[in-house]
């Protein structure tokens, strides 16, 4: 049995995900004659904080059957998008958490797969939240080391386990 770093973490309710009414539009949405293809509005919808949070909120913690969102490891305000730069900050549940690198790596893999290649992605620990913060940050943002880690089949399998429900985007999993 591997050492469990935090056997009894605090669980938070998932953030509210219901989109508010579209206040820009005069007309209420009409479900009876709603046309799914909103092609008329060919405005470009930019990738924003909320969309990136949606991508990573349902990643599982490697140690618990809870998502990163439920453990408040990640949250929308901790994500910044400026031009082609994405900065994701995350908070481990305890300062000695040995899983931090793995969590960071799973966020990185998810974003590598789900964001266009034009983005440069920085993943860092929340300042002051971890005892070996610098080492972890360095490891997570070193291209060579990330690539080397992804060569390790056991590690990749663990990552796939964490990412298995990532596409739920905060929705509750369907009952099996």
């Amino acid at each position, binding site marked *: 049995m591997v050492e469990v770093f935090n056997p009894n973490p605090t669980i938070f309710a998932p953030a*509210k995900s219901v*989109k508010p*009414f579209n206040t820009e539009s005069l*007309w*209420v949405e009409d479900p009876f004659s709603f046309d799914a293809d909103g092609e008329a509005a*060919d405005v470009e919808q930019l990738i924003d904080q909320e969309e990136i949070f949606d991508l990573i909120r349902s990643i599982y913690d490697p140690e618990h059957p*809870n998502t990163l969102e439920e453990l408040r490891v990640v949250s929308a305000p901790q994500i910044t998008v400026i031009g082609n730069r994405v900065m994701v900050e995350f908070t481990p549940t305890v300062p000695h958490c040995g899983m931090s690198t793995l969590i960071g790596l799973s966020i990185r893999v998810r974003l590598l797969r789900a964001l266009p*290649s034009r983005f440069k992605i920085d993943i860092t620990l929340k300042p002051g939240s971890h005892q070996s913060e610098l080492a972890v940050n360095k490891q997570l943002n070193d291209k060579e080391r990330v690539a080397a880690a992804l060569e390790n089949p056991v590690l990749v399998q663990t990552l796939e386990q964490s*990412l298995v429900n990532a596409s739920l985007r905060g929705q509750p999993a369907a009952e099996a």
Partner: protein
Amino acid sequence: MASTDSAERLVTTWIASGRDEELAEAVQEVSEGRLLGIVKALGIYLTSEQDELRTKGVDFLATVIARCPENALNRQSVKVMSAFFCDKLDDTETIVPALKGLASLPPICSAADALLIVNAIFKHVTMRALVQSVRFHVFSTIDGLMAHHRETLKGMKSAFIAPYIALADGEKDPRNLLLAFAIARVILIEFDAAPHIEALSHIVFCYFPITFRPPANDPYGITPDDLRAALRRCISASPAFGPFAFPIFLEKLAAGSPPIKRDTLETMTICFPVYGAAAARISARKLWNALKLEIFQPTDGATEAAALAAVQALVLTIHGADDAPGTEGELQGLARDACTECVGVLREPEKSQARPAVKVLCAFMTTTPSVARYTLASAVPHLLRLLADPDEVPTRNAVLLLLSDLIAAARDSVKPAESESEVPEPPLASYKDEVLGALISGVGAPQTTRAAIAGLMGLVSTPRLLSEAELGFVVLKATDVLETCFDGEHADDSNALLKLLMTVAASAPTLVRDQTLHRLMRALPALAPPRADNAARTSYQHILSALSTLTGPAPLCAAFVSGLVPLLTAIAVDTPHDDDSEPAAAYLHALLTALRRTLASKADSEDADVGGYAEALVPVLFGVCVRAALHGEDGPACEPRVVGVVGDIIGIVVQSLPSPQQQTFVAGLVPAFLEGKVAAICAAEHVSEGVRFLPFSAEATTPVRNLLVLFEAGIVPLHPTVTLAADINVCEETILEQGLAHTNTERQAEAVCRVVGSIVNKHVDELGAFLEHKQSVYWAERIHAPTNATPRRRQAIRVWTSICKGLLVRNHALAHAFIGRLFEVFEDVEVGTEAAKAFGEIAATDGVLTKRNAAVVKFLWAQKFATGILPRLMKGAQDDNSVQQHAHLIALTSLLKAIPNASYAHEMQKLMPLLLRALQIPDAEIRAGVLETLRSAAAQHPWLAEHAPTLARQVLQYTKARGVALTSMRIRVSALRLLGALPAVVRYDVLHPCKADVLRELAEALDDPRRSVRKEAVDTREIWFKYNG
């Protein structure tokens, strides 16, 4: 002597040949009472010195006896046979056939024979020396004796049990085990098994838990579940097993895999009540510790549920007798300790362990009343204390969530009372005031609103808990909070609050009407807020969405409508005419949309009061619309979107009317639209007698003609028995010709076509002249006439389509003649494509010709049509003539898009190449349609393999938003979904060469300008990343 001869011949032939015919004849002989002849003829073989012959001889006799009908042998013969076979058990060469013979004797032998047989078996049979099929005979013999001579065996006492245990020990074959378990259960329950209980436990518990996995092609079809159930019946047969069972359970629970854990837990749940309180009390501590582990560190949901059930059974067993009269007093023992332990965990309510702790407490609620009382008495005050503690403010949300779980468990623990007189008091009654107070104060604080609502939900849904006044207090508070939610920040809270209010409304609608509804209605602005006032607009949208959710019960709906009518009128009529009437129209639209949502959900649940609004509401709606339309173009009620919603509302109301009332309604509607007598159907304050309203005539303005939508809404839901006009042919022709002659919008023409189609569907038998005219004149003059203007011809095809559809839905004989005409214009440059696309429209299900609209709809009409027409379209799509081919391909894809994929699954092999070709057609709608067809087909049919690589590469092109001609969001989304569906149905090696390309090119789709496309792209790419050999 003839019979002896024939018997001898039979025996000799069989010994030589072993054929079945001789056996059958011998059985016949024995059935006719000539057993003696057979035995005599067998004589020399039965006593032969040669081992092989002796075996064969006994085998023959055993087989014959086994096949004989039960009454063929008399008592004496049975006695002789028993003695004979028992005798042969001694001989190693004949033991096998002798056992076979004995297996058929128990039903017919006497008690003395039974004794003889069983003793002989115990004496001579060594199970370990026999193969499983022979051991099966032994078990069947004993099982048969158990069934027919149980008293005799019981009388043997230890002389039976001890040797039987020795016999059954070490059995491994599943088929034999099923019998052995059944025998053991009878011994445990009916025999005096006490002296042998330990030995019995050895031959039962050595099989627990069952880990048998049936071999492939198991001829006996025994499943692990059969064995598990049989063993469970054994284990739970005797209370004396308790001391042996508990250590085994604990050991298996600690070491087992999840299925074994589950099996153990389920077995424990069954066994606790049998083993009894005394035994359970001795091991209670250990059992609780083991079960606790399964709940607090569950391996999976099912195991956790099984463990909770086991805890319940344990508590019920131990404390089941506590509630007997005279045992009042403090609860002692397991439940008390476990409760204390769980409440101890709840000291840190925000931690993850608090959840399982409260689950255990909830499980205790459904055990015995005294345990439930104790649980509430220790948990509820503790949680209330935490809520009151100023140091614990950050954990309040978690505490309230735990509390609401307990409330719900307390509610569910009360079983429905059998009679009114002895209704038990809800368990929570004694804490009601404190709990209600805590929840009410929790609802007020934004941090804890959701959790508190969950708790209140539990309280209000507990029968007989809250008084009317307390319910009123809850409603008042909920409404207060609801009003603060309309700023858009707390949409989730408002949904939960609405659910709470709806729960109250189901039992006490007047409370919600007087407090919530009236306040919300008053909060609606009297006139539309100006365009720039986003906040006011958001606020009314939220209020309306809340109102439409709440107003399901009849009194609420009536109050909603009566409050809405003056508001609607005021906006439609009194809005000052200035430059910008759009905000007013949008507000009107929002109000009407809310009303439609209410009525639609009421119609879905078939509420009786919907039809009542034909008198209270419909004339007002007609009045407002007609008045506005006659007044000019810029009134808010002239807006086509507003008219559309009004039409929907009228449609819903007319649908719910019974046909006599529909008749009265239509007697006003048809003259109003066709003859201008509109005042009759409108509210008098809006439209006075003598106004000029002729929407079908050339002089009608666009707003007036837009009201054809309301005509459609009134006509389409009519029952077939309702008479529209004296001469329906003339009426239908008038509607069609005059209606289409002057239409200037799509929607107007659509309304006319729908009316025509609906009337054709319901009155086809009276429309002979109309249909005849269409076939002979209309087709030639309007459609098949190249000189006509193209738009007119296209419109005529739409009319034709709706007639076809009206006929086809009811499987009318004329339908195919009408549809067949469409092929005639396939080569036409102007209208060929329209005619081809019509096939999709004809087969599609729409909202017009439905059961709810009283249309005559035959079962599976679309599937029948598709099956009939598919071969012709497929043949045409391979035509040499390229124009024909193109049109057929379009017709084919439109049709496939419209029908469920089961109806063309069998043709998929041939359709694939056609569909791939259809993808090339430069038409965005068709391309998206084909992609969707392919995807829905891909989900079910593993036919794709041969085309998959081509398909993947081609579809990949359509996922791109930039640098590709002819793309739309719908195409991109469909293409991505199709790509995402492939890995699930195609073997990896087939698509392996494409994987790298797909992943690379999908990266481009990740950067799509539209968010919904990006989402699909991410999901599809993720699927391909995981796609491995």
